[in-house]
């Protein structure tokens, strides 16, 4: 079972039935894995903030959901996360690549690396960085906890966790 199989299994355990996604190199494997599961409604979107609103809508339909996007996309979503999710206390569970980290040397990713987490802190969006395989099993707890927090929650996946080669 590779890391994407493990994350998918824990999302299933958390009761996730819908995934709204936009590709990023680091999370493409997870997006493909989720898309293979016919029990999860997969909604590819045209821009990342759509994932936030789709998951918010699914919440009111009683369906547990996840947004799977890249870190660059997360930066573009923070306004919608605030004016929709904070405004109305709607939980949205986001899985995001930890792009721009010290082991990510792709030039496009440099800006967000040191800035995303301070931005999340400013908005008071809880987050967690998962770096080791044995932390994946905390996903169902994190899912339940984010519902209790009633706001967006970001689970970052590191390059080391995803087993990616150096760029």
């Amino acid at each position, binding site marked *: 079972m590779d890391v994407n199989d493990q994350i998918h299994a824990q999302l299933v355990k958390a009761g996730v039935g819908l995934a709204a996604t936009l590709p990023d190199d680091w999370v493409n494997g997870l997006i493909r894995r989720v898309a293979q599961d016919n029990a999860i409604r997969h*909604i590819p979107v045209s821009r990342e903030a759509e994932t936030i609103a789709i998951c918010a*809508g699914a919440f009111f*339909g*009683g369906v547990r959901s996840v947004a799977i996007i890249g870190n660059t996309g997360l930066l573009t979503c923070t306004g919608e996360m605030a004016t929709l999710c904070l405004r109305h*206390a709607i939980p949205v569970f986001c899985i995001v690549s930890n792009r721009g980290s010290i082991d990510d040397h792709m030039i496009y990713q440099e800006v967000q690396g040191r800035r995303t987490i301070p931005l999340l802190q400013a908005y008071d969006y809880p987050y967690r960085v998962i770096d080791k395989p044995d932390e994946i099993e905390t996903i169902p707890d994190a899912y339940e906890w984010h519902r209790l927090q009633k706001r967006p929650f970001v689970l970052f996946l590191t390059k080391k966790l995803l087993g990616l080669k150096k760029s």
Partner: protein
Amino acid sequence: MKTNEAMKVLASHRGEAIVVCALGTAANGWWAVTRSEDSFYMHGAMGFAASFALGLAVAIPTAPVWLLNSDGSLCMNLGCLLTEAGQQPSNLKHFVVDNQCYQTVSNMPMVNQNGADYAAIARGAGIARTLTIEDLAALDRQMPDINAAPGPYFIHLRVEAEQNYQRPPPFSYEGAEMKYRFGRALEGKFGIKVFGPTGF
């Protein structure tokens, strides 16, 4: 036609539809006419009522879902049409209230005012069923067919711009209260569970 007149016609044909309103004129008009608490009124996230309605529609595929979008909101996220077309939600009707201006901010003109064909844009994105309606009689006449047809269906409603009309949000509740009123209404109406056993 005027926005509230169009809203009254829509309300008379609503049936069991869940309604999601883009912020501004669409939300304010629907509230003014219906005082409906089993509707969701966006207070922000301009452009993303369409995505919210899509998430709701696929989550409750047996329930009709109406999106009351606006021209300003649609133009802020035209990509929503591609996402909607990609899913082909058979229970979603996408109305766009087009007054050719940003009415709740002093009627400032829309980008490319009067120069865009929104129904053509929707068709180009992959939504096969589209319609443009410019008067109340046609709206009233078309609604039974719109309700009976499968979605996604994009209905462009051309309305008049009105001066100093419903600028402030008129709702008597907001924020988390809107979440709970809307969620509890859907639980009661459709027998679904939005909230857990201890309320969150």
